[in-house]
């Protein structure tokens, strides 16, 4: 009798255990996805691609400037940190701009998207292809910066999904990497949308922006005929046209202009360091260099938009935050960071045509250059001779135009390296003298974590 009670109790308990066993311990995330639970729906595929752009926001928030301007002659600094390290060519392996973490986060997210989006869109359809195109363009953008900043880099094209995969990857030759960059961008130029019919045209990859980035890659690799081809596609693209000089400043302060080809979007809460870099009244990281200010031609209408010309030091750079902005506190900025715009591609095209040579090409090059000069209120060069008279040769005239038109937009250092003028330009300023010094060192943290990485020779 009493034993029955026990049996009943035991049975109840055992039943509880058995029924509970089956599922109580299987808890998948509710507000996120397990690694194997994502990329199941088309919405997942879209969100995965936005996740790559999110990584791009982190990449460029400060580093577009450290990488593209920090080591070049357009800026000067009164600060002692990263900016002085770069400008005085005193780079070491703890510099923050030598850290590639954010770029590889971007690569990793892109690799996930590129690997799994095809699984979502089993039948090969246009939506899937355009998402894949954006993901590949973003991966290309990341690797293009990686190669330009560090040279040979670890080359990873598959996502990490298991601890069994090799995580200690050594460096791959930069040309191999750039081959994939071209391949990715060619795919994007073919499969991305023509346009989104919204502001997204400026902040997400379209056929046009893929071609524009490809133009940059070809120019870096000195593939001038290819650059002429792709830049032509950009110039013909109805999405893009030059803004008038009255709106020139608004391109940067208001963003989303018709001249813009690809900019990284920011807003009130997803912010960047433009204010800290350029516009914190008395102690911005960078101010325009004396050399650069002196290089501006008389009557250049752009000058007033770019910096505080009222003769008091320090002169804040107003280009992004807008004229008259002088905030003493380094709060984050919300303006987009333009990576590529039409004037940029027009000048690259002019450079390519000039390199190929021939009268027709030179004429077109001159005409492209004059379009930009005229907009700035400068007198056009009637003939190549005028340009030669003023700047020594047409290429130098174009490069000068780039340094004024695209000032502080993160192009100058790469222009100098690409055209082989980095040492001759920076040598007198900071003693830069060694080709091997043109790349950044690999950050000590990365070397510590990966025994298979070898430091760039100059920094060994």
């Amino acid at each position, binding site marked *: 009798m*009493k*034993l029955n*009670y*026990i049996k009943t*109790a*035991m049975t*109840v*308990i055992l039943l*509880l*255990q058995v029924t*509970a066993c089956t599922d*109580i*311990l299987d*808890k*998948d*995330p*509710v*507000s*996120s*996805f*397990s*690694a*194997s*639970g*994502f990329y199941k729906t088309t919405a997942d595929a*879209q*969100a*995965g691609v*936005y996740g790559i*752009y*999110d990584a791009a926001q982190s990449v460029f928030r400060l580093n577009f400037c450290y990488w593209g301007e920090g080591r070049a002659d357009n800026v000067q600094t009164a600060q002692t940190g990263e900016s002085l390290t770069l400008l005085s060519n005193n780079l*070491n392996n703890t510099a923050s701009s030598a850290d*590639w*973490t954010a770029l*590889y986060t971007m*690569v*990793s*997210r892109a*690799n996930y998207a590129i690997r799994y989006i095809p699984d979502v869109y089993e039948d090969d359809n246009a939506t899937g292809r355009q998402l894949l195109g954006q993901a590949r363009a973003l991966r290309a953008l990341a690797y293009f910066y990686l190669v330009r900043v560090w040279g040979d880099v*670890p080359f*990873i094209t598959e996502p*990490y*999904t298991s*601890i069994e995969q090799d*995580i*200690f*990857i050594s460096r791959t030759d930069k040309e191999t990497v750039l081959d994939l960059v071209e391949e990715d961008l060619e795919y994007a130029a073919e499969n991305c949308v023509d346009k989104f019919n919204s502001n997204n045209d400026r902040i997400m990859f379209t056929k046009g922006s893929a071609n524009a980035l490809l133009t940059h890659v070809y120019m870096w690799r000195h593939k001038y005929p290819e650059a002429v081809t792709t830049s032509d596609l950009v110039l013909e693209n109805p999405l893009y046209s030059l803004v008038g000089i009255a709106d020139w400043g608004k391109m940067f302060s208001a963003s989303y202009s018709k001249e813009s080809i690809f900019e990284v*979007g920011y*807003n*009130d*809460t*997803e912010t960047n360091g433009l204010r800290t870099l350029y516009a914190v009244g*008395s102690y911005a990281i960078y101010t325009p260099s004396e050399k650069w200010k002196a290089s501006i031609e008389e009557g250049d209408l752009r000058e007033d938009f770019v910096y505080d010309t009222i003769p008091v030091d320090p002169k804040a750079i107003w280009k992004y935050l807008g004229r008259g902005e002088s905030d003493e*506190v380094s*709060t984050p900025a919300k303006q987009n960071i333009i990576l590529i715009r039409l004037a940029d591609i027009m000048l690259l095209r002019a450079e390519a045509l000039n390199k190929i040579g021939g009268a027709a090409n030179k004429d077109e090059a001159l005409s492209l250059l004059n379009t930009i000069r005229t907009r700035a209120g400068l007198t056009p060069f009637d003939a190549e001779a005028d340009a030669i008279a003023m700047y020594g040769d047409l290429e130098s005239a174009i490069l000068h135009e780039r340094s004024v038109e695209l000032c502080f937009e993160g192009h100058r250092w790469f222009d100098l390296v690409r055209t082989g003028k980095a040492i001759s330009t920076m040598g007198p300023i900071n003693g830069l003298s060694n080709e091997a010094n043109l790349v950044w060192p690999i950050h000590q*943290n*990365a070397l*510590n*974590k*990966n025994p298979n990485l070898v430091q760039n020779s100059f920094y060994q």
Partner: protein
Amino acid sequence: MKKRQLNVLFHQEIRWKKPVLLTGFMIMISALMIFSAEASSSLGFQQRTVTGKVTDATTGEALPGVTIVIKGTTTGVASDLDGSFTIDVPSGSTILQFTSVGYASQEITVGSRSVIDVALQSDVTMIEELVVIGYGFKKKRDLTGSISSISASNIEDTPVKDVLSALQGRAPGVVVTANSGAPGAGITVRVRGYSSLNSGNDPLYVLDGVPLESNTLSSLNGYDMHGLNPLADINPGDIESIEVLKDAASTAIYGSRAANGVVLITTKRGKEGKAKVSLNYFSGVSEITRHLGVLNAQQWRQIILDTYKNLDRYNNATTPTEPHWTAVDSLNPMNNGDVDWQSVMYRKAWQHQVDLGVQGGNEAARYAFSTSYLDQDGIFLASNYKRITSRLNTDFKVSDRVTIGQNVSFTNGRNNRINAGGTGNLSLVQSILVRPPVYSLTYPDGSPINYFNGKRNPVGMAEECTHLNVTNRIIGNQYLEYNILENLMFRTSVSIDFISMKEDEFYPTTVDYRAGYNWGAVRARTNMTWANENYLTYNTSVGDGHDLGAMAGFSMQNWKMETTGLDGLYFASDNVRTLNGAGTISNQAVNRTDEHSMMSFFGRLSYNYKGRYLAEVNLRADGSSRFGAENRFGYFPSASAAWRFSDESFADGLGFLTDGKIRVSIGQTGNEAIPNYVSGGEFAIGTNYLTNSGAAPTVMPNQGLRWEVTTQYNLGIDLAMFNNRVNFVGDFYIKNTSDLLFAVPIPETTGFGYITRNIGDISNKGMEFALNTHNINREFQWSSSFNIGFNRNKVVDLPDEVLTNGYIQNGTYHILMEGQPIGTFYGWKFLGVYSRDEDNVNQVRFGSATGQPFIGGDPIWDDVNNDNVINDEDKQIIGDAQPLFAGGFGNDFSYKNFGLNIFLQFCYGNDIYSHLNNMRNWVFAYNNVSTDALNRWREQGDVTDYPAPVRNDPKRNEYLRVSDRWVEDGSYMRLKNVTFSYTVPKSITDRAGISRVRAYVTGENLLTFTHYTGYDPEVNSYSGLQVGVDEGAYPQSRTVVFGLNVEF
């Protein structure tokens, strides 16, 4: 309550029953003491009847359930509810024995008397005390593990405001540190040191059998890292006892969550008898314990000018640099103040608490009801904490075999906080110390200056911003106990812990520099934990004196947490602070659900031979959803034994020895405190691109993850001497943790910074002693309690792949290194100040071989590798935040109706990294500094240990340079509590129908002996492994309280 438990559970005739066969994993164990009062029929002597009443000698209250036995026989009765008894005794010289747990037994010769009233003295020792253990109770004398017990008497008569601070200094080996002095602030509790690197080091808290949610109650918005006290929601007046389970024998029954010890909290339950009403009130005032010296306006202007002068010296400038602002212009109306901001911001703060309790019941139903209200102002302007608690505990005896009951408590807490945590402009404690003294409070027209020169006015911040945390919490537990057989009991319970927490923040336009810019945020979180626990307890005796016990059970538990929140900008008005008033809902919308569950089987077997030889085994199997499918279940065994050598014949010669016992134990426990979803990897939502929702892989999967395992060995001794007037408990332990869950850094090229793996070993070794003595036990009584715990913590093994330069950087100030304890500070060593430029004989340089050489006025840094360059390679170990020992010393005096209780608490050998002092001695921008700067280096030849302040600090002399200049000895001894009380004599109160009136005055934190130069050495700005850092926490206060206890 302890008496009640005896009555209900054990004071029964229990006879041997045939063993019951139990199957499968269910290994039955138990450790319940049985009172065997075998009644045998009386013999045919001539009988007569004796009656009487048994009372408590101290309180005069009737004592029910006292066993009265005729000596030399087994004939006996028990006293009834009124303490009355009737017993038939044979004629002749009969002796009656009166025994009751917690009281010294008495023998009385009947003689010719027919009425015998007896007053029992409560036993001076607590050795007969029942102790709460995991899933049961045990007589303290039969313990085989290491458990510290704190009873209500330590808590209830003093104005303790929270449960955890009641633990401080009371239990050896338990180090309790208030993270800050803010009302309701977080408290760090470490039992036998740190046993985990990446996972939690907090003990498991169990309230009346309900495992409490305690890990996640940090500030929702993340500015204040001190966290909130998870047990602040429990009224200390409700506490009957707190048990801290320390060794594996005691904790293993809680398996995977027990590696850091288990704190069992038991609340008061009703007792049979007429309703007892108690009313407690206290009111007190607090003030800051210390005032830190800051420069006045004139001294400040001088040091600002010095910083420019020194920078010019660095740069060999020919024309002197002028300060940018009018800051040093004493005639400028914005800059002509002379304010010590501490005197503006700190205040005398009042606190009040009132408690009402009603307890009572009869044989069928018992109840304990209580409610309390606390209103506590913080010493910092505008901070306040209000708490309402209410509790009802009931027990119903449904039948002879079935008892049901419930414990339900509700708490509403409103914590009006100030932002005292972290660094920067928003942290008030730090910002008032560095705020220039010259800033005016008001404009010339009298309106307040809330924002000026990049600095927010702290008065405006405290008074105009909102930082309100409201918590509602229900902890409930319903149980059913079924005595299937007389010695076989089944208990099942269902419990919930429901927390609803909401935090509102608002920063009005008046404290911002941007016109019309205000912002607000709201965060809400609900935590719902439910648990179901079922277990069977079986006790039996075999043969002569062999007692066996068994317990086996099964439990399930589930945690679910939902967080919701929004941030808003550009509110139309500063007066409408809810988010519907926001012009822009910024993108920081939060809505997240996390879930985690666990399923466990557990059991215990115990054996006891006449209390002389004791043994126990425990086993728990825990399955957790946090671990990979292959490693889902962990098994946690323990075994222990004890030998009461005082019962052996050889101990007869040791007359002074009342009781002596040696205990040994070994066992394993675990730690599953890692994030919920790391084993399966995670794609996080919220990686948005502007308004487009994005998702991204954020956690790399590791399906092989498993528990951390802690193996602990314990050797203990319990001694009672001189008729229980001296009690000593000593324990030695070794605690090794392996398979540490650790986020191992991996190359960023993977796209992930870390992967969580099981690596490394940590050990803790230590000893603990507690000594309780009754020094004088007459009309004047004096008793003392002393306890001390020594712990040595060491990181034993870390795999090479996680080390950088031989260590792991742990936050800004600490490293983890093999052979060193957790809490090791690492930085540069300060040797003094160069008196003259030429004193830098070796031309030691800053940063690199081409860096600037140090000159007169610069600090002399220890150049460890002698390369004449001061850089990262010259860092070294500069301190250790863990104490060598900590403990407490209490003395209770009583004479007639007066009582005096003095409690000292101490902590020795720990270092504090005072980031606050760093900030206070670094002229960053126009910050004010401490008066130590008056000794600064001013010109060539000055001999001082205070470097010259330099604007912008190009050589990082002070700027965030982690150095031993800021490491200080954090040892202290504190007069924690002094209470003087007077109980109105019973003869007076009885006439008024009141059973007890007691009035007291308590001083808390009256004196602190320490070399620490900050506000208070009891500080812990980060709740994790970054132990012993003072970032400028809300200071501790000194409090004087007057209180009144009344019982009807």
